[in-house]
Structures are given as structure tokens and as C-alpha cells.
């Protein structure tokens, strides 16, 4: 039995939590999220390099939340998501037990949010290397080439909103896309409206994206929409020296300011 399974079992048995959110292998061997409420079934929990989904998105879902206290198997992005969710008052720290996973896959002892904070602080908070490379590549293009790239990508979007559904930070009960007075985002799919949606999504995640890349993975038509939010994560750090999801009381980039914020384009 893996350390994770053992820990989950212990938590469930002691009634420290009522549900553990983790990964299990599905019938075909594909990794899928698991919601373990019965200590006896904790054995099915696994962790391997295929376990990449950001499970934090389930923490705000009513179906999971109502079960009770939640244990969650948490890699770095998940831990950062939890920090964000706490700072945005979407989850209460007392209701969560974190089964932290270190970079090498070992189970961490995350006793409380302070421990998690110091673990996150020690970690690399930049974007994943392969995404950072792609960003650099795009940033090297001319503005027309970048437009062409994104126009091409956006034309593929089918407005399924999987990017939104998979994102732990997209927890609104009503999304701006669902507003129809006014209709900010057109219902039908066309390149312009699709681009509007992705700009809106990226702006709403500005300073909040924790660079898990889940939106990009979720996209059924392979739009690298995670690059948009990651670019802004990069810039949020560039301009304001803020990495999202590092502490429970972080100053949100978009709702705070410094009088001497630097820019060079306002005349």
C-alpha cells in the first residue's frame, strides 16, 4: 500500500476527513479522479507521473463539499490552488487536509497552512519549463505573426468551456459568459467571439493563475489557452513581484495597487 493510501485510510478511519480526493486507475488503466469516502477503499489511491489533473477544482463543487471535511492529494499546483481558494474565501482551511506530494513523488507532511506556505515558498513558482519555452518562442514572433497564430487557434474553439470547468479558480456560480444583458460573449462560435472569451478568461485569471496548465490539457481541440494565463502570471511577477497562491492572505494583483506601479505606455 502506498503512503498516500495509508495516510488516506488513517484520515478516514479517524474521521479527520469524510472524503479524500485523489487519483485512481480507471478500468482501462487511465488515471481518473477518485473520491474516497470509505476507508476500506483507500487502497485504490495511486500517485504516478500520469496524475496531473488539478484536483483543487473539486474543492468548490457542492457535490464534494457537502460530504464534509476533505482530504486532498496535492501536488504543487494543487497546493497553490488551495492557497488561492483560501485567500479568496472559497474554502476554509479547517475543512481541508492536504496530502502534499513533493516534486519527487514522496508524501509530504503538511500539518497546516503555514507548513504548506513554507513548502510553496521553497518551490519553483515559475511556469513549467516546456510552457515557458513555448511562451518565449511566441514572444519572439512579430506582432502580426502572433496575431495570425492566435487567430488560427481561436478559430478552432467550439465554446465548450472545458477550460473554464477544469480551472480551480473558475468557481463562479455564474460566469460572465452566462450574462445575456448585455451579452458580453456571443453564444455562437466565431473567431472574434472566441477570442473575446479567451481574453476575458485570461484577464479574470490575471494574477490568479497558478500555472497548472489544466485548461490547456482540458481543451478538446488543443488550443494552448493555458499560455495566455501563464503569460500573465509571468507579467504579474514582472510588474508586481507577485506569485499567485503562496499564502492564505496574499494581496491580489488586480484588487490592490502600489502608487508607484511602473508602466511606460500611458501618456
Amino acid at each position, binding site marked *: 500500500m502506498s503512503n498516500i493510501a495509508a495516510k488516506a485510510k488513517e484520515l478516514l478511519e479517524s474521521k479527520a476527513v469524510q472524503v479524500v480526493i485523489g487519483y485512481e486507475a480507471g478500468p482501462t488503466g487511465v488515471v481518473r479522479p477518485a473520491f474516497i469516502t470509505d476507508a476500506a477503499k483507500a487502497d485504490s489511491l495511486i500517485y504516478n507521473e500520469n496524475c496531473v489533473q488539478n484536483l483543487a477544482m473539486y474543492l468548490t463543487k457542492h457535490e464534494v463539499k457537502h460530504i464534509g471535511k476533505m482530504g486532498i492529494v496535492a501536488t504543487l499546483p494543487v497546493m497553490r490552488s488551495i492557497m488561492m481558494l483560501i485567500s479568496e474565501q472559497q474554502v476554509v482551511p479547517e475543512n481541508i487536509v492536504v496530502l502534499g506530494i513533493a516534486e519527487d513523488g514522496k508524501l509530504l507532511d503538511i500539518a497546516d497552512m503555514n507548513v504548506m506556505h513554507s513548502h510553496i515558498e521553497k518551490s519553483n513558482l515559475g511556469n513549467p519549463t516546456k510552457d515557458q519555452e513555448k511562451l518565449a518562442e511566441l514572444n519572439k514572433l512579430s506582432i*502580426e505573426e*502572433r496575431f495570425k497564430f492566435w487567430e488560427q487557434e481561436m478559430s478552432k474553439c467550439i465554446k465548450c468551456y472545458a477550460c473554464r470547468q477544469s480551472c480551480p479558480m473558475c468557481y463562479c456560480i455564474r460566469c460572465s459568459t452566462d450574462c445575456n444583458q448585455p451579452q458580453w460573449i456571443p453564444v455562437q462560435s466565431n*473567431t472574434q467571439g472566441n*477570442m473575446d472569451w479567451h481574453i476575458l478568461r485570461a*484577464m479574470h485569471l490575471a494574477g490568479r493563475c497558478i500555472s497548472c496548465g489544466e485548461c490547456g490539457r482540458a481543451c478538446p481541440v488543443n488550443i494552448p489557452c493555458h499560455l495566455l494565463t501563464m*503569460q500573465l502570471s509571468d*507579467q504579474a511577477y514582472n510588474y*508586481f513581484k507577485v506569485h499567485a497562491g503562496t499564502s492564505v492572505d496574499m494581496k491580489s*494583483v488586480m484588487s490592490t495597487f502600489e502608487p508607484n506601479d511602473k508602466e511606460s505606455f500611458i501618456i
Partner: protein
Amino acid sequence: MSDFEPKVVAFVCNWCTYAGADLTGTSRIKYATNVKIIRFPCTGRIDFMLLLKSFANGADGIIISGCHPNDCHYTSGNFHAKRRWIMFKELMDFMGIDMKRITYSWVSAAEGARWAEVVNTTVARVRELGPYVSYQKMVNTHIEEEVTNE
């Protein structure tokens, strides 16, 4: 393209730039007719989506203007706006949407002449850039059609 008249929308705050534009009028300083003003209480109120909607509805250029830093009628609306614009500009740059079409400025209630200058330089720049077809035409493209450039 010589008869191209750019459409420019100006989003301005009520207390500084709107009043500054009033002063331009009171001072009878002339500027291009291409710019039309929409009044907001504060730059902090200006939703970035309105900029996209302007382009989508045929605007070729946009001016956003409010009180100088520290002069905001509401103390800090313009500081929040500034952060929002920094992020927005970075995103637009990254997506290849030409920021030369958007002028961000601080124009106070006392800067009537400056407002005329901001308007005229923006109109001249947008005139040079031409109509924003590349954005507007996207409304007609989606997955079934092949995206053609130009």
C-alpha cells in the same frame, strides 16, 4: 485609403478628462471629429471588455483617459485602472492585437489643449494604421472555414 476616416471611441472619466474635454470646448480648441466620447464616473469603471466590443463594433482606435495619478476624484480608481491596463496591454501584445490603436492617457480638467493633442495624435496614428479589418473580419470566421489572412 485616402478617404478613410477612422472611428475612435474615447472612454473617459467624468472628473478629469471629461471636464478637460469640456475645457477644450470652452477654449474653442479644434480637434478631429473622429473621436466620440463615452462618459464614465472613473477610469476604474472601464471594463476591458468594452474595448474589445468597440473593436468588434467597428472602432479603429480607442482612447482611454482619466485623472493623473494621485488626482483621482475617488482617490484610487485610476491606480486600479492602471494595473488593469498593464495586464490588458501585456495580454493584447501577446495575442498580437496592435496596441498602437489604443491610447492611454492622463488628462486633467485643466488640460484642454492637451486633450485636443491626445485626440489629434491618436486619430493621425490610427489613420496611418488604416481600418482595423483584421479584427473585425474575425466575426465571419470559425472552424468550418479556413482562416485566410487578408
